[in-house]
């Protein structure tokens, strides 16, 4: 099997290397074929692995590929851990990546950076696969940073746009803040566990559960709480949880296929995946779980609200992603790791679909992204219209659609959870359902229904996009509808993920929930009588009323609620705060240290000052060096006198006294 695992990772890397190194030479068709074949191989091999893992008694593969280095008794290695969790992740990643590769042929056809783009997305696929297949923290961090790098390159893909190169720098730096926490968490693991290998660390976790460490004098923390909180800070960066979420909306400056692949379906879920993978650690820290839960709830609710006031079609979907990542974090906090992974999976399909559909609209309208200049597109773009509707229905959790099963699983799990903060989180995810439905269908109605608000020239040219664009939409729409129905049982309640996820008995909300589970059909039918369904329905109805029936009303409401609207339009002032305090503050302090401490004090006073002192002293000494003979003779006589007095003075004195 080892060669298969290597193949999964290396195929896209080879694709990326070849297309990247020769991107200025190779013709476009060759490039996209090389890249697609690379990722296609990964996908097919992932399917092989998934089938293998689905079989009864499939073994977990855990082996080292090579030793990165050994220092201080810690072996740092590169290796693979393949279990069912990995198998699900690699299949989702390579499938969505393949779809995005194909879609890109259509989306980027006029772009001069076509070849470079393929190289980047293949490199991304490699990095993400390395991350999810890691069997140790070092490789996890490698993948972690590598996806960050590619994300940086891709957000700034259109490097001539000032906004794009601002956004990619911002994304990298905000992620680095999270990475600092993550790295410290890894350092703590290396120190206390003496190993970076997952298996070693997980096996020792129970023994470490009681261990306390002192961070400041006199206050002791549980070691595992410390480690888990640090690791989660990393997840907050990558998975864009408040307050490290600020980079994700700006990342929409990248081309749409990237928004779909990296900033919705895969990379941003790395943090969620990581916490699930670390469940054997998080389970021993109530505090850490509570932190995850509360941060997730805040993200889920408050970021959803922002989606309502956005006018840029991609930004609406971006805020929706933030909110859904919050849902996943909530599930993690409630110890419903399987539910988080399940939502990660369904979300990957329907969110990639929504982004690619948005991209399809954007190309059709000649790179128009403002929803105020769209409308009525269902008449011109039937495939995009229907697939968008499917994606939206999945997102808001319509019964039988994939998003329904995963989201309802989370809501029910939180309801049962005892983790501190679960009450607030339950309220947040519940109200969040209404908010999700409202912003999703606001977007849907603004784009596909109502008046056609684009200019005359654009309207005449609107037509459905090419098959290379629409086929990925259809292929993604299928799992967006079906995957939940077929996998809810195994994923949530029958322990498909098996040993990959560890849940302590007292936290096991999903098995509790599973006692009432009698098949996907019953689950969906039952839901129609519950609150979330009616909240979602109310959201859709409100959206219809406001944006189809009385389209003048939203502006009036915004006018009435001016302070709230301003707060939302300014995204709670996070960006302003960071710009002023961190970016501005850093530069100010840097300038002060440079101009004052370095230039004025060290160079001005100490260095040049000592030169001046030497100069001044030598100036005085120089006064004596007149060059006149009598002057020197005079000093010799004075010297002689002084010398004689010094040596002979006491004797002369004695002589005189005596």
């Amino acid at each position, binding site marked *: 099997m080892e060669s298969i695992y290597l193949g999964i990772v290396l195929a896209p890397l080879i694709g990326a290397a070849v297309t990247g190194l020769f991107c*200025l030479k190779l013709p476009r068709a060759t490039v996209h074929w090389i890249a697609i074949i690379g990722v296609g191989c990964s996908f097919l091999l992932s399917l092989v692995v998934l089938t293998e893992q689905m079989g009864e008694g499939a073994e977990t593969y855990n082996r080292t590929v*090579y*030793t*990165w*280095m*050994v*220092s*201080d*008794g*810690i072996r740092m290695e590169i290796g693979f851990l393949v279990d069912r969790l990995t198998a699900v992740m690699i299949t989702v990643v390579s499938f969505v990546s393949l779809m995005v590769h194909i879609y890109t042929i259509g989306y980027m056809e006029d772009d001069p950076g076509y070849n470079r783009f393929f190289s980047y997305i293949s490199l991304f696929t490699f990095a993400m696969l390395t991350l999810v297949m890691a069997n140790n923290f070092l490789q996890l*961090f*490698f993948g*972690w*940073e*590598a996806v960050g*790098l590619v994300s*940086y*390159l891709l957000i*700034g893909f259109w*490097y*001539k746009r*000032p906004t794009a*190169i*601002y956004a990619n*720098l911002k994304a*990298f*730096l905000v992620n*680095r*803040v999270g*990475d*600092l926490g993550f*790295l*410290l968490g*890894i*350092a*703590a693991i*290396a*120190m206390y566990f*003496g190993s970076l290998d997952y298996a070693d660390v997980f096996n020792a976790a129970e023994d470490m559960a009681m261990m306390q460490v002192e*961070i400041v004098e006199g206050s002791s923390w549980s070691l595992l709480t410390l480690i888990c909180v640090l690791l989660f800070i990393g997840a907050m960066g990558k998975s864009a949880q408040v307050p490290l979420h600020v980079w994700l909306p700006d990342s929409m400056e990248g081309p749409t296929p990237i928004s779909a692949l990296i900033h919705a379906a895969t990379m941003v879920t790395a943090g969620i995946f990581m916490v699930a993978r670390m469940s054997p650690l998080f389970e021993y820290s109530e505090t850490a779980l509570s932190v995850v839960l509360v941060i997730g709830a805040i993200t889920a609710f408050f970021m959803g609200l922002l989606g309502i006031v956005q006018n840029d079609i991609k930004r609406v979907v971006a805020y929706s992603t933030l909110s859904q990542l919050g849902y996943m974090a909530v599930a993690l906090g409630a110890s419903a790791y399987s539910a988080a992974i399940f939502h990660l999976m369904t979300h990957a399909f329907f969110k990639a679909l929504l982004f690619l559909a948005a991209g399809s609209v954007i190309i059709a309208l000649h790179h128009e992204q403002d929803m105020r200049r769209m409308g009525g597109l269902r008449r011109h773009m039937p495939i995009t219209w229907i697939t968008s509707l499917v994606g939206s229905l999945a997102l808001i959790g319509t019964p039988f659609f994939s998003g329904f099963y995963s989201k309802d699983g989370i809501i029910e799990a939180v309801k049962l959870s005892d983790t501190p903060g679960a009450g607030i989180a339950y309220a947040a995810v519940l109200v969040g359902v209404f908010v999700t439905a409202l912003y999703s269908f606001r977007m849907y109605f603004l784009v596909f229904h109502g008046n056609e608000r684009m200019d005359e020239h654009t309207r005449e040219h609107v037509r459905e996009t090419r098959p290379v664009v629409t086929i990925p939409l259809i292929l993604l729409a299928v799992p967006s509808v079906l995957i939940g129905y077929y996998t809810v049982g195994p994923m949530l309640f029958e322990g498909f993920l098996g040993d990959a996820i560890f849940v302590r008995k007292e936290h096991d909300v999903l098995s509790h929930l599973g006692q009432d589970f009698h098949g996907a059909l019953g689950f969906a039918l039952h839901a129609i009588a519950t609150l979330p369904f009616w909240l979602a329905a109310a959201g859709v109805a409100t959206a219809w009323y406001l944006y189809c029936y009385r389209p003048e009303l939203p502006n009036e409401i915004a006018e009435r609620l001016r302070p709230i609207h301003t707060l939302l339009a300014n995204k709670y002032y996070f960006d302003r705060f960071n710009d002023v305090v961190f970016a501005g503050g*850093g*530069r100010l*302090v*840097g*300038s002060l*240290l*440079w101009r004052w*401490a*370095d230039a004025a004090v*060290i*160079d001005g006073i*100490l*260095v040049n000052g000592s030169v001046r002192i030497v100069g001044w002293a030598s100036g005085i000494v120089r006064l004596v060096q007149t060059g006149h003979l009598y002057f020197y003779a005079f000093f010799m006589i004075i010297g002689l006198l002084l010398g004689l007095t010094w040596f002979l003075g006491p004797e002369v004195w004695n002589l005189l006294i005596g």
Partner: protein
Amino acid sequence: MISDWPLLSLTIWLPILGGSAVLFAGETNREGARNLALAISVLTFLVCLPLWSGFDTGTATMQFQERYPWMSTLGVYYHLGVDGFSLPLILLTTFTTVLVVIAGWEVIQYKVAQYMAAFLIMEGLMVGVFAALDAVLFYVFFEAMLIPMFLVIGIWGGPRRIYATLKFFLYTFVGSVLMLVALVYMYFQADSWSIVDFHHLRLGYQEQILIFLAFFLAFAVKVPMWPVHTWLPDAHVEAPTGGSVILAAITLKVGGYGFVRFALPITPDAAGALSWLVISLSLIAVIYIGLVALVQEDMKKLIAYSSIAHMGFVTLGFFLVFSIHENTGELAGAALGIEGGMVQMISHGFISGALFLCVGVMYDRLHSRQIKDYGGLVNTMPVFAAFMVLFCMANAGLPGTSGFVGEFMVILSGFHSSIWIALLAGLTLILGAAYTLWLVKRVIFGEVANDGVAALEDINTREALFLGVLAAVVLGLGVWPDPLVSVMHESVENLVQHISVSKL
């Protein structure tokens, strides 16, 4: 057997004598001078390779030793040898010199032979510094290597080169004079000039403190540590590209090397007592200098400040052993710090060298180092832009490049001492990325900034060659640092054991 040859002497004298030959032979024939210099530098590098392949990684004792009486009445020997600390630095030196010769190929048109000769002679002297096991021999090389650098900056430097050279010379000279006093004192105590004998010399606490301070001043200036760092930005700005590369890649490493060769093993108790000072200064270097780098408008100054911040990791890693021992009572994690510091030195040699070469490539075309004169280079120089982004990412410590390895190890080691040290050191993740990538944003990305940039031509084969080789090394060490680390391993373990035993 080739490994029975006096390889170290060859590595020292081949470039020195060869450089002299270039000096005399190449006055009239520029092309000949270049070719001869290239041949000598490549040959020297090849001579080094058997050192690497023949090196026994299983022992911490000095290898490839050569020992002949030099001034027998004074007990001075011509004594050479390498261990896990010096071997990687010697390889770095000979490797970098080849690149510097290639980098100066067409760019230097004024006094070509002297230029090439200066670098070759400097190469031999620097190898001598790393290979010398006799204190007098060391001191001679240590001081002598200042002279070629002084000349390189003074002759081929920028408009303020006189100020820069004087500052450079005085700073480093003041530091090293006290070291000479310390060395002489120890000679009288040990009745030997052997550095290895110094390691085993028993010294009282007061003596150790004084000797340590003398070493500290000498090496802190070289590293350079805050607050004796201000010569470096000036020297870099005025130096020609090759001078900057050698300065950053090798000369600074002499400071770090001095700590592990002299200060730590000879005066462990004093180093322990003052480790708080060194650790504080190192963290100041990482954070304070990181912030200062952020606001630089001159690319060379920015990279110079970034060098100081990165070298902060070296001194931090070297001195963590004491605070780990004090805080935990154990030595676990100490070797990580010292090895991390060593890896950081080697890696920084490649990365900062590469970055200075990149600035050189730009300077050769537009004759400006000011960030504001650039912008949108990727439009006209895509291949160069790719290299620049790679090296900048390495400078920001991206995993998969060599820049990550050392920082990672030192942060891991720092955690053993205290989470706060690890946190403060870890701020480099953010600061390093901020100043480096902001530079990339302003220089590489964006619309074409001006007509100068619009007219730029992408790098030629010669430039692609040295940048490509460096890129391969930076990536190679990042993906598989084991060959480098395993060379140091025994020497580091040995040092940790040695300094954990008090000399009092």
